Structures are given as C-alpha cells and as structure tokens.
C-alpha cells in the first residue's frame, strides 16, 4: 500500500471543502449556507474515498449529505416566518476570529512538529471486508451501544419537537 495519495484529487477536494466551508460561514442567506454545507459533506466523502475508507464515504453520503442536510433545510424553512428572514447580517466577530486563529496557530505548530512514523502492522489497504469483520468482533459492544444512543436520540428528538404538548 503506498504511504501517500495522489495530489490532484486531493487538491481539488481540499479546495471544494475549504471553499464550501468558507461559504457556509460567509453567506448571508441561511438556505444558501445549508446548501454549501451539503457541498462540503460531499467533498469530505470524496476525501474519505481517497483515503480508501469506502464504507465511511458511503455513510457520510447517506447520513450527512442525505439526512442531516435535509433536516437542516427543514428546520431553516420551519423557523422562517417570511422569505426575507433568510437574509441575515453577516455576524462576524473579532473575538471569535481571534479564538479560531489561536487554535489554528496552535494546531499548526503541532503539525510542524509532527514527524512521520512508520506504519504499524501489516501494510494493507483498508477495505470494507476487514472493516465489517472487525466491527462485528472487536467493536461489537460499541456498535450495540451506538444503536441504543441513536434510539434514545430519536425518541428524545420526537418528544422535544412534538407539537401537541399541553
């Protein structure tokens, strides 16, 4: 397995990801921001494919690009009383920019200090078959707990958002 990936698809997907993320933050219209979020999710799924995480790319497309984007769009449209309410002021604050920049500088210093380590274990490309085998052997208990978490979240979301409360 090569210890690096092709640069051209990486650069294309990185530009799509960062540009889309900037548009999420900088677009004045909340509906447009939701569509840019969808674009970022799809680009990140492409990056997962590039990292040979095919199953997670599929999950990313189904859960984020499919369910979460639709949910966000529904909520945006349910909480807007008029069409004009979608247009908002830009809401940029210097304090938030300072915090984000500080985090970026700290993370950048950590990345500069990073020394590549040799891959541990067999140098095989990850594939869906080994993912599934490990998921239902070593990771079976977290998998079951995750299903309970999703069930509780589902019940809680219905209970919170239900309109017919007294």
């Amino acid at each position, binding site marked *: 397995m090569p*210890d*690096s*990936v*092709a*640069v*051209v698809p*990486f650069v294309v997907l*990185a530009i799509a*990801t*960062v540009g889309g*993320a900037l548009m*999420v*933050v900088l677009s004045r219209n*909340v509906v447009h921001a*939701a569509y840019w*979020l969808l674009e970022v999710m799809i680009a*990140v799924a492409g*990056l*997962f494919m590039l*990292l040979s*995480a095919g*199953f*997670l790319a599929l*999950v*990313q497309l189904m*859960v*984020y690009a499919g369910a*979460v984007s639709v*949910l*966000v769009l*529904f*909520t945006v449209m349910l*909480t807007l009383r008029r069409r004009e309410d979608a247009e*908002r002021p830009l*809401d940029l604050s210097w304090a938030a*920019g300072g*915090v*984000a920049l500080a985090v*970026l500088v700290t993370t950048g210093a950590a*990345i500069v200090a990073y020394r*590549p*380590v040799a891959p*541990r*274990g067999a*140098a095989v490309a*990850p594939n869906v078959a*080994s993912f599934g085998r*490990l998921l239902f052997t070593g990771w079976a208990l977290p998998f079951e707990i*995750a299903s309970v*978490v*999703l069930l*509780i*979240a*589902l019940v*809680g*979301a*219905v209970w*919170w*958002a239900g*309109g017919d409360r007294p």
Partner: protein
Amino acid sequence: MTVGPVAFMVLAAVLFCIGLFGALSKKSAVAVLMCIELMTNAVNLNLIAVSRFVTPDSLAGQFTAAFIMVVAAAEIGLGLALVLALYHARRTVELDRLDRLKG
C-alpha cells in the same frame, strides 16, 4: 506527485478553525449547528487520515470516526429538535434574544 498525512492534517485544521469561527460568531441557532457539523467533519477527516497512514490494518481511526458520526447524527437531530421547540416557545431562533437569565 503525492501527498502524505501532513496535508490532510493541515486541511482538517483549517476546516476545524473555519467551523469554530462560525460556531462562535453566528447568531442563528441553526447556523451554529451547521458550523458544529463542519468541526465534526474535520475531526473525522483527521482520524481517518492518520489511521490510513499509521495503523492501516487495525482501522481504529475509521471505527472512531464511525462512532463520532453516530454521536454527531444524534447531536444534530436533538439540536434541531431543540431549535424547533425553542421556536415554538419563543418565536425566534436568534441566540442574542435568549437573554432571560441575564442579570
């Protein structure tokens, strides 16, 4: 030409900081939740990249990312349900106007 793990780390850091900036500065509750999703995606990208380049056979990063996706899906579902409940109660999703506890 190829790129290694460092390029993915830089990309994830930039994506995380854009999401952090938006989550801290946005005034609409839905926009804040969208920016939190950006941050979650950056974390998942970093985990999968490091797992792919350092421990490709145990897939630990991929499993962690999968469970983060589960928790993030629960989070966005509950968060948007809270936003809807908030809208029913107060007729607004502006975080600036939720100042009832302010002294």
